[in-house]
């Protein structure tokens, strides 16, 4: 114990009160209310909430194969987007961190961040134009049109900066001397990459994947813009809440991504990647 008198516990408590209230009431409270609503139902005609405990919502989630299909599709897209982003981010981040001169490095960081200044919607609509039958990709003869492929391309584009930045930070932390030592010991470039670079930036990839994965899991707007008739988990939630006025079912289905992300974060925690955020 220090001999100097620190701030009194009362004052510390007072200082912490607003953020704790925010976390407890606004943040966890909203989640709790959502979870509670999942056990209610609605009056089919007037749309009023019927606050009687029922497991019907969860039962239809399990019984009806369409929800399993949609969940699987959403997970698949999230994994795919994450892999595409990881594959694209590695060379870019490596060049930025290890090859580029400091001036160019700064420019590249700005270039990577630049798309984040534009609205999400603008970028999604830009891709709607790109993927259109009369768009530039079609002109090159390679347009997949609106649908799953177009969706993966668009989401991978949207979330790419969130993958590049942590990987870039991870690579910067990797001392150049390690690469030199590996080369001095006779390792070819590929071996150095596989045994020195990859293991040390792996946690950075995991950190980036939290963004790409969770953002894809929850996305439903880009799906509406470039996904064609495709449905993802977020669309079902949004449609149930906004179209069908069925908050309880929307809440029940929202529990699925929450569970998936909790599981994912649990795995991530064990890799120690959270320290890289």
């Amino acid at each position: 114990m220090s001999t100097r008198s620190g701030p009194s516990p009362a004052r510390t408590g007072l200082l912490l009160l607003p953020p704790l209230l925010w976390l407890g009431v606004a943040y966890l409270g909203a989640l709790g209310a959502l979870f509670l609503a999942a056990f209610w139902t609605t009056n089919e005609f007037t749309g009023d909430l019927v606050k009687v405990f029922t497991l019907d919502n969860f039962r239809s989630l399990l019984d009806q194969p369409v929800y399993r299909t949609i969940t699987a599709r959403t997970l698949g897209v999230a994994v795919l987007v994450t892999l595409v982003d990881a594959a694209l981010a590695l060379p870019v981040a490596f060049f930025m961190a290890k090859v580029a001169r400091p001036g160019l490095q700064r420019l590249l960081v700005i270039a990577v961040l630049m798309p984040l200044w534009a609205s999400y919607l603008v970028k999604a609509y830009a891709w709607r134009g790109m993927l259109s039958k009369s768009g530039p990709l079609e002109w090159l003869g390679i347009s997949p049109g609106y649908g799953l492929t177009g969706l993966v391309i668009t989401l991978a584009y949207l979330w790419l900066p969130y993958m590049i930045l942590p990987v870039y930070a991870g690579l910067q932390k990797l001392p150049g001397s390690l690469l030199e030592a590996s080369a001095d010991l006779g390792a070819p470039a590929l071996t150095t990459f596989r045994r020195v670079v990859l293991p040390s930036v792996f946690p950075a990839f995991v950190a980036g994947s939290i963004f790409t994965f969770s953002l894809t899991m929850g996305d439903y707007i880009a799906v509406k813009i470039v996904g064609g008739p495709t449905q993802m988990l977020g669309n079902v939630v949004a449609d149930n809440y906004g179209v069908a006025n069925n908050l309880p079912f929307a809440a029940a289905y929202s529990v699925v991504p929450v569970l998936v992300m909790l599981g994912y974060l649990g795995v991530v925690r064990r890799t120690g990647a959270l320290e890289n955020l």
Partner: protein
Amino acid sequence: MNHNWKLVAATAAVLLTAVACGSSSGGDKTAGSSGFKAPDVPMAKKLGTKEGAVSILAWPGYAEDGTNDPKTDWVTPFEQATGCQATVKYFGTSDEAVSLIKTGDYDVVSASGDATLRLIAGGDVAPVNTDLLTHYADIRSFLKDKPYNSVDGQMYGMPQGWGANLLTYNPDVVKPAPTSWASVFDANSPYKGKITPYDSPIYIADAALYLMNTNPDLGIKNPYALDKHQLDMAVNVLKTQRGEVSEYWSDYLKQQQAFESGDSVIGTSWQFIVNLIDADKKPIKAILPDEGSTGWSDTWMISSKSKHPNCAYAWLDYIGGPDGNAASAYYFGEAPANTKACDVIATTDKDASFCDTFHAGDEAYAKKLWYWTTPVSACLDGRTNVKCTTYADWTQAWTAIKG
């Protein structure tokens, strides 16, 4: 909650009788013979002093105050004439309208037929004393006392206008020209991947209407009254269609763009979207096939919790009157309910053909339409030996169709 179930049962009872007399075609008031008890919401007997404010809940484009386009403003003249300051909130779907009106923050709402009865049954809207509306007499008769805007011959609002979901196509691509909805439900369509249906569970009625004409053995008499088997059959039609869909649309701007770029070449659309595409000089045609179509008919209603009932009446009278009705129907692109609105559009907007384009006075055309109605478990076509599927069932089916 028990209370609400009684309402549902009661509503179901009136629907049985009302719709048996023709839900889309009959203008008769035979609903009066049923034992329906709409919740006891008091009706205004006379008008008092205006409160100086009115809160409007509307479909986009129904209450423009110049914010979107300074030249498009029919709310300000209303404010100047009545002294009622208007605040406008737009909603995107009928369901959103239903949940918003329940807050009690709004005085009036423009409700489509798939919302109106839910609002009446929920006690969310009040009966409207049409004697207090000077322009009510000018409303087209085939829009008055309909099963979706009245109970026991008691009107619940001021009709705004109506429109049809049209079979819309790109004449440069779709040849020969389609004549029937069959062309969007064809399993081997030459336009695979370029068909665009409307994105709402209510679209199931379009498939049911198609089955009603092509598969009479199924016994569908009303596309909003489907028993379990009939719904399954309609769902099958839509699941086949799913493989041919470019995208499901609910945002009209996106549909306009998809038609213009050629990503969609045939599907369901509305007249005003067609006009927008036409204005861009892109190839587009829309028809109402002989077998008819689904459509909407909107009615302005007054909230039972209205804090400004006198201004609410003033708004209904204005928006149903020749000027307000002309401006809103012209901007939105639908047939105006007021008979005098067509002349106003012809003189003010210099668009003499508008009402012809929208078949405003064409009752025969209006009768071909099956207006959006909420499906309920008591069959709307009068059958009593089966239970029909509800809107909740349709919503789940819609998710399954899109897969």
